[in-house]
């Protein structure tokens, strides 16, 4: 039995400067006008839509002030949407910073949530944790091993954050209800993750030798999934993806950006040799445009119901053109 929304009056959103968090906050505030929403981010926050029940604060999660917010606001739910992405990664992948924010930051947030009696928490991880490997079965379920960092240690933070969250979730399941979401590639005009940047950049290299399948979820739909998870989804790990799939070449065709076909095998070696990404895409994510990582959505689907997703894959991709 999950916590009912009528018992939730105050929500904390971590990473409110991010596109997904902003949309989630907006939708949540519209659906529940009585709810008090507090958004925190270490980056400067600028909300396009100002509503009375959303307050934002810029601060680091490691500071004492962060604890004070928990004490003062008495949150009933925490939405952790603040995972640092790989979009601005330099060749070394700023791993240290990501490890600190994603793993240590998550630990601090969750520990505070437990200490101050938060009833429900949602943590947004990523499908990257499964790794893009040539021997991935199609439809990877939530019990599959997390193999992302086998080949690329730069992805350690992604795996460690997920493992920490899930361990923490099971350990404290009697005290706090936690939902860990592993969404497929989230795309939308407000999202600036690596995949969005890759899809929308003109003349990006595209594999002449590989053409993996992809699942894409629109930012609005993902925000709706986060809210539904808060409302209805019980403790557990859930993959989030629509039923549709599309190959990377088709996806770029839909967006209409010109691509340069390059054998990825050659590109990978060149990037390694030069140790310099000549287009904004971290080299340790190259395998994700080489091998498919298709996740199984059977776990969360019963909680979403039929026709939950508002945008088809094609529509979501077409909306990227509006940027």
């Amino acid at each position: 039995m999950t916590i009912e929304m009528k018992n939730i009056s105050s929500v904390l959103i971590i990473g409110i400067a991010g596109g997904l968090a902003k949309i989630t906050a907006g939708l949540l505030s519209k659906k529940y006008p009585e709810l008090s929403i507090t958004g925190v981010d270490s980056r400067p926050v600028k909300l396009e839509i100002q509503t009375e029940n959303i307050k934002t604060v810029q601060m680091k999660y490691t500071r004492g002030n962060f604890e004070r917010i928990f004490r003062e606001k008495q949150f009933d739910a925490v939405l952790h949407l603040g995972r640092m992405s790989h979009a601005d990664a330099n060749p070394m992948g700023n791993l240290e910073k990501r490890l600190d924010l994603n793993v240590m930051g998550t630990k601090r947030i969750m520990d505070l949530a437990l200490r101050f009696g938060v009833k429900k928490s949602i943590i947004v991880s990523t499908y990257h944790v499964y790794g893009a490997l040539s021997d991935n079965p199609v439809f990877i379920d939530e019990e599959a091993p997390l193999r992302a960092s086998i080949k690329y240690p730069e992805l350690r933070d992604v795996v460690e954050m997920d493992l920490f969250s899930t361990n923490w979730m099971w350990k404290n399941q009697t005290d706090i209800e936690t939902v860990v979401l592993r969404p497929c590639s989230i795309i939308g005009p407000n999202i600036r993750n690596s995949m969005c940047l890759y899809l929308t950049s003109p003349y990006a290299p595209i594999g002449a030798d590989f053409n993996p399948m992809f699942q894409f979820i629109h930012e609005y739909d993902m925000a709706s999934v986060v809210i539904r998870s808060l409302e209805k989804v019980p403790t557990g790990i859930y993959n989030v993806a629509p039923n549709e799939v599309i190959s990377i070449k088709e996806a770029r065709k839909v967006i209409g950006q010109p691509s340069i076909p390059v054998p990825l095998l050659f590109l990978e070696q060149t990037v390694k040799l030069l140790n310099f990404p000549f287009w904004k895409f971290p080299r340790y994510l190259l395998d994700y445009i080489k091998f498919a990582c298709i996740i199984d959505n059977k776990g969360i689907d019963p909680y979403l119901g039929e026709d939950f997703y508002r945008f088809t894959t094609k529509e979501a991709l077409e909306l990227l053109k509006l940027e």
Partner: protein
Amino acid sequence: MFEFLSEKLQVKPPKEEIDKIFEHLQTIYPAGEDPWGLSLKKARKNMEMIWPFYRNYFKVRVFGQENVGDEPYLVTSNHSGQIAIDGMLICIAFSLEVKPARILRPMVERFVTGLPFFGTWASEGGAVLGDRQNCINLLEAKQSVLVFPEGVRGVAKNTADFYKLQKFTRGFFRIALSTGTKILPIAVVGAEEFYPFVYHPRKIARFLGLPALPLTPLLVPLPSPVDIIIGKPYEAPSELTPESSDAEIDIHIKAIEAEVKRLTEEGLKNRRSFWANVKKEDKK
């Protein structure tokens, strides 16, 4: 001129027939793609490319089409011919000559999906990773899957072992049990003679870490006529579960093995003559 020659040599695929097949396939895969990497457009191109070889080089004949219904099957075949040409021909046969037409999904070795160009070419044509969970997911999605339960032992044989069926592994039967899928035994006759002189140095292959290392003086397969014989579907008894003991399921695996053997022998009796398949005693 080209048109005239291609018609005379029958290298041009029958457009109308293929159009009809793909119209039907479009209803199964409305997006033109599927999660396993299939691309209908590419599958059609592959088929049109392979068709002249299928029809005029290997002169494929299919028997027993009436045994195939409108349901998914775990198609179980003998494996021969050193490289997976037999699998390719079976897949074309199931699209062209079996009603309703379907894209049969051959399970390929793990290393294939990681190969640049070839791996993608194979996936876009319908091939899928040879993984148990992957196979279960495909069958649950109502796809017919092609497996070679002899494994690599079946394909990498010395000339002296041609048409000797190797022992079937159990995995395919447990997959059929867990999905409630019928097994469709088939036999391919003629593929062994693609490369009639083969030596397979097993120890060197093992030393090099390769699944097989067939050595043959021929670069291209010989135009051996191929017959594909489809048997009757085999349904596992309902009291068996995927967790049943080896002893319980071995009886059924032996029965399927025997059926594939019978179909092979039947095919060998009726096959067309070709210089590489004429037996010594026949020559006398």
